[in-house]
Structure formats: C-alpha cells, structure tokens
C-alpha cells in the first residue's frame, strides 16, 4: 500500500505505482486513441482522455470509470507512441490505485470451480496476462494445488476456460453452458 501524504496528488499516486512512472511524458497527441482496437467497439473509450484526467487529478471520475478496466494490453499503441509510454502498464498502474482505494474491477474475470479442478496448472501456463497462479491450499482437510485468479490482472479473455481439460475454470456470465446454449439456439433459428 502506497503511503499517502496530504500533498500527494492523484498523478503522484499513479506515478508511484509500477508502470505509472512515465505518465507525465504524455503530451496528448491522440495517437493511442486513434490506434486502439477497443475504441472500434467502445466508441467512448479514450486512453488519451484517461491519461489527461489523471494528470488533472480527476481521481473520483477516473477510478469509478468502467473504461480503466478495458485495455487489453495488445500494445499496438506502445509501438506508435512518440513519448515511449507503455499505456497498458499505465492502465495497470491506474487499476492498482483503484484496487487500493477500494474500487471493484468493472469487468468479467475467470472463476475457478474448486470441486472439479484437478490442479494441473494448464490455465496458469496459457494465461497471456500471467493472472493465474497455482497456490497450495487446505480444502476440506486435503492439501491441494488450486489456481488463483488475480482480479487485477485478468482481462476475461477466456483462454484458460478454453484450455482447461476438466472445464473447471470459466468466465463469469460466459460459462461453457451458456455459449453452447447460444450456439444451439442460433443453429435452431437458422434452421440447420
């Protein structure tokens, strides 16, 4: 937990979090926003605006915004950013501050079903965001290796859910059953 002094601004807080160091480099050129593939889907997502709002210390508006949870860390903008800012890291830093301040991630994350999990660890290996870690825990008097999902790091991509051989990991609100039902209904509607 970062120490908070009265003079510490929101920008300072983000700068102090890992990945947030370069935030003040941003001169608002808009390259990231114009690059972002998430912007194609969610028109109101604007990384440049989020960075600017942080620098204007609009803490409440930024941390309660659903947009800070959207970056998928594809890093296309990083390659084009003229100020050498890795915006995915910056977003991670902003999220870190959000979690510290008690804000909940506004996005779906992976969930583990401890009853069916075999502890093979394939989910941890495939996760592109290194959000899953195997931890030894005592469950009902048994010592078991169970995956733990870091809600901060998980982007809800579902790679783990598709990989899991025992279907023990799934994405909230997007379970295998739900997807299969959707496919069935779609097949029925199209009549094949």
């Amino acid at each position: 937990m970062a120490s908070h002094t009265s003079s510490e601004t929101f920008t300072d807080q983000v700068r102090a979090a890992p990945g947030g160091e370069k935030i003040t480099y941003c001169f608002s050129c808009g390259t990231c926003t114009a690059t972002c593939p998430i912007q194609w889907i969610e028109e109101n997502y604007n990384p440049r605006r989020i960075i600017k709002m942080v620098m204007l210390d609009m803490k409440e508006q930024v941390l309660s915004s659903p947009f800070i949870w959207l970056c998928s860390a594809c890093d296309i903008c990083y390659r084009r950013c003229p100020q050498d800012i890795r915006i995915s890291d910056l977003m991670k830093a902003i999220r870190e501050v959000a979690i510290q301040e008690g804000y909940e991630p506004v996005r779906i994350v992976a969930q583990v079903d401890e009853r069916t999990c075999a502890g093979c660890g394939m989910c941890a290996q495939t996760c592109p965001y290194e959000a899953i870690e195997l931890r030894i825990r005592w469950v009902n008097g048994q010592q078991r290796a169970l995956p733990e999902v870091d809600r901060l790091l998980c982007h809800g991509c579902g790679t783990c859910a598709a990989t899991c051989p025992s279907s023990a990991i799934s994405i909230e609100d997007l379970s295998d059953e739900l997807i299969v039902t959707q496919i069935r209904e779609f097949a029925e509607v199209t009549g094949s």
Partner: protein
Amino acid sequence: MVDAARHPKVDVRTYTEVERVEGFVGNFKVQLREKSRYVHEDRCNGCGECAEVCPIEVPNYFEMNLSPRKAAYVPMSQSVPLVYTIDMDACIHCYKCIEACGKLDAIDFSLEDRLVWEDVGAIVVATGFSHFDPSVIPEYGYGRYPNVVTAIEIERLINSAGPTAGNLIRPSDGINPTRMAIINCVGSRDKRFNPWCSNFCCMYGIKNAILMKQLNPEMDITIYYIDIRTPSKGYEGFYDRAREMGIRFMQGRPTLITEDPETRNLYVHSEDMTVGQVVEREYDMVMLNQAAVPQPDVDTVSSVLNISQSPGGWYMEYHPKLRPMDSPTDGIFLAGACQGVKDIPASVAQGSAAASRAGRVLHAAEWEIEPVVASVWEDRCISAQGKRCGVCARACPYGAIQYEEGKAPHIVVAKCHGCGGCVAECPQNAITQLHFTDAQILAQIRALLADRPEEKVLALRCHWCSYGGADMAGTSHFEYTANERGLRVMCSARMDTDFIYEAFRLGAGAVLYSGCHSQDCHYITGQRVGSTRADRLLRAFDRMDMTPGRFRIEWISAAEGDKYARVINEMQELLDSIPKEELLEEIERLRPQMEKRARRMREVPQVEEALEYADRLKMAMIGEEV
C-alpha cells in the same frame, strides 16, 4: 552566392572537403581535399553541351530523385561556380562529352583529387542539417505508398523550376490532387527517433499549404498537428492567414495511413482531439513534414575540427545563451542549423554573428585569452626524465598538450582553456594552473576548515555550473545550512584527489564534489575527467569504510539552485545524524590514511609556504595553535 563568388576577397571552394585542421586561433593550417570534377574549372564555361550528349541518366538528388540528370551535370541551374562535373560512379567512359566540349578542351579524365594546405585565421562551420527518412515509420507507409511524399518532395513539385514546372501532380497517376493532408512532427518530438522539436516545420507546413492553395484555391488541405508553434515575429499572422484561406487544422497525431489499392487514395486515421473522436479521412496525397536531423558525417567533422556535440549530434556552442555562435574551441565558430535546428531568419542572424566574431580574430594582431592556463614544472615531470607517461595529454579536451616521450610536454597556451584537468591528473604534480595553483587551493581549504571542521560541508564547485547553482540558490532564497563552505575551481576536472584527502585529513565533516552535467560541460570532456576521478575516490573511501555520504558527487547545473540547496541540506542532515563522538572517532581513524595519500602534496612548489601563511592567518583569526 554569385556575388560572393565574384568578390575579390572571397574565395569559394566547392566540391571540397576539410581533411585536417592543425594550429590554433589565428594560426590554423587546414588541409583541403579538392575533389576532382574531371573538368578544368578555368576552361569550362557552363554551356552544358557535355550533358546534352551524355547518354547516362541517374536520379537527380537535387530534385529529390523525382527527375533524372546526366552523368555530366551541375547540381542545379544556379550552381556557383557554373562548372560541370562528371559523375564517375555513373560514367561509362564513352567520351562523347569530350567530343562535344571540342575546342574548350575542359574535360580531362586524368584529373585527380588535389590535397592543398591553406593558412586561415578563423573557421566558421555552417554545414547545415539533413532530413529524417520517414520510411522507418512503418505506419505512415512512406516508400510503400507512392502518394505519401515528404515536404521536400512537395517543395520540388510545386516549384516552377522543379521537375514538373510547378504542376503539382501525384506520383501514382499524375493527376492533380484536390485533397491533401499535411502531417507534422514526423520523426520529431518522437522519442523513438528524434526527441527534439524541429523548430521550423509548423511554419514550413503552413507555407507549403498556402502555396498549394494559391496554385489551386479549390484544394482541400488539412494539417495534422500536435501543437502549432509560431513563436517569432509575424509568424502567428501567417498562421491566421492560412486559416483564413480555408486550410483546415486538425489537432491529433495520425496513427496510421492506409491505401486503397485501386485508386491509390490514402486514408489518414487519427483522433480529432478537439471533439475527442477517432476520424478516418480520405486524401489524394499526404505530405510528411519530416524532422530535421544532423548531417550524417557530424562525427567526422567534429573530430577533424575538435569540436564537441550536444545530445542528438548538433555541434556544441560555447554557451547556449551568451555565445551561441562560438564553438568551445577558440577561433572556430558555428552558424545555422549545424548548431541546432533553426529557420532561415535565425540562421542568417547567427551566420552574421559568426562572421563578425571571425572578423574580430582576423583583425587582431594579438589575441587575449583567459589567464588561467596550465604550465609545466619540467624538473618534476617524469617524462622529462625519460619515463613513459602522457597522462596530461590524454586528459586535455583541446589537444593543447603536445606530448613526446622523453620530453616534458609542451602546452600550446593559445589552445589551453584552463579547465585544469591535466593539473589534477598529473601523477607527479608537475603541472600547475595559473590562478588556481595547488598552493592557492590548499590554502583556501585550510582557511575554510580552520574552525570546527567536523561541522562543515566543504563544497567544491565548478565555475560554470555548480557555482552558478549555488548562486542561484542564494538569489532564489533557497535556504541551506550555514555550515557550507564553497570553493570554486574552473572545472570539476581540476578537483585534485589531494584536495579531498587534505580536506578529510583536516577533519572535514563532509565534502561535495560537484560540477556540470556531462552534456553541459564547458570544457568539452572536462566533466568526464572529473567524474572518473570522483568515482575512483568514492570507491577508495568505501574501502576505507567511511560513512557513505560524507563524500558525495553531484552534477548540478547553474539553473538548479533548488538541487544545490537540497544536496547541501541532505549532507548536513547526514552529519547531524551521526553522533559527534562517532564522527570524530571516524575522522581520527581515517586521518593516517588521508595523510599517507596526500603526502606528496607538500612537495609541490609553493604549497608549504602557502599553508604556513594560511596557518598564520588562522592563528590571527581565532588565536589558536595548529
């Protein structure tokens, strides 16, 4: 240019390179390589018959390779002198040109480069700048999409003397574009390539937009920018005029250009920041306003002239505000963009300033230099006794020390700038610096640490930066401890290890070793000499188990008054945090080692005398026996 060439007192040498420079201010000897044109300059009358018959065509560099030229060529029609050159890389030796030249007999394939020596009093470097190649930015597609062109290519395409006689056409199909995008900051203000602002591109882009609008008032022109910078006189009015003419300005740096493979039209993707929306607009042609970069051969030129470079590769000026046209080497002056990107008015101003600075040298029978130069005590030099050394010559940033084995070094006084690097580096203490002799500085240290030395922070400051930083702290009223004792030398290179050993031997609480940041050094590489030595000292004190922080190295610019005050206060806090008995015990423990390391100091001429004098003064001041 023509006037210059005709002037009886101006000797224009074109197609010539400077190979070597020797000597010093007022007395330079310059070796020039006059490259062979394979044409007798005195016979050629510039009629161009040779070019007419020449069967070889190569891309014309002057026209940005948009049109061809012959292997027998002049770079441009206004060339001075108007003498043709045979491009031997392209020539097939058909000798048709010799035939065409006929009676003039100007062409001679046996001509070779000539090496000549010239005596000159002063040198003005005005080598200009080069252009950034935007093809390394894959997202803009320069080199892949024919209709993405650079600003200089547009410049030629709209020039009435250019390859299209001023008819602006796009390269893919030759039609006149009606929708044009101009992208600013291509490769500049970009940490991936060149972090600097290229200074003139905003105005230059606006100029080209206005010219194109004048050619075709119907043309739809959009300038993409991050910031528009129009700071000089009348520039903002020019920007106003562009907007009045209907040129559109769009804030937001484009991220991508895509091409329609059928029409070869281009789509520019950017965020329009004023509305906060991502937009994609279609254009017939895109002009990239590419960064200005240093000439590719800056390293060669700076080593030939012995002048240093600022970060990025621009030639370093003596002082950025007060002497921007002087190089750190006396008698060598800088003009124009080679010293840093600047536009035409600024280049002209600097060029005139450099010329008048050079004029001062040429009209002076004698040249005054700073009196703080180095001088050698030959009887102390081990090289004079036949041993190998040369440490002094290696430390000199100006090449002012001529070293020959078996002899005492010869210091070319006119080249010496008085950094004192050689003085401090000499292992035999065989060199001294006038007005900054070991004796003078050691006497000062004695006096500064006369009373309760364990409470003092002795700050060694360089004249140009950290001394200015301390001054800035004072004028800005940044408070720092009254226990600080400052000592000025010209450069951190002068800060002899003896001074620091002597300070600790006398019981100094803490010693600060401060100077310019490496890139700001006023003695080219003096700071590096000082910094290497300081690091060595730090390691030595570490091995002696001295409390870390009692010897501190900080590089502080003249603008960093706050940093100076902070560093001094931190050092005071460190001293406060050590119990006094422990500190005194440590000083006593280390004293023999300091004594041992500084023992040779007393052999230096005048030192003993000066120290005695300092001690007498101390006694008079505080009435205490040493």
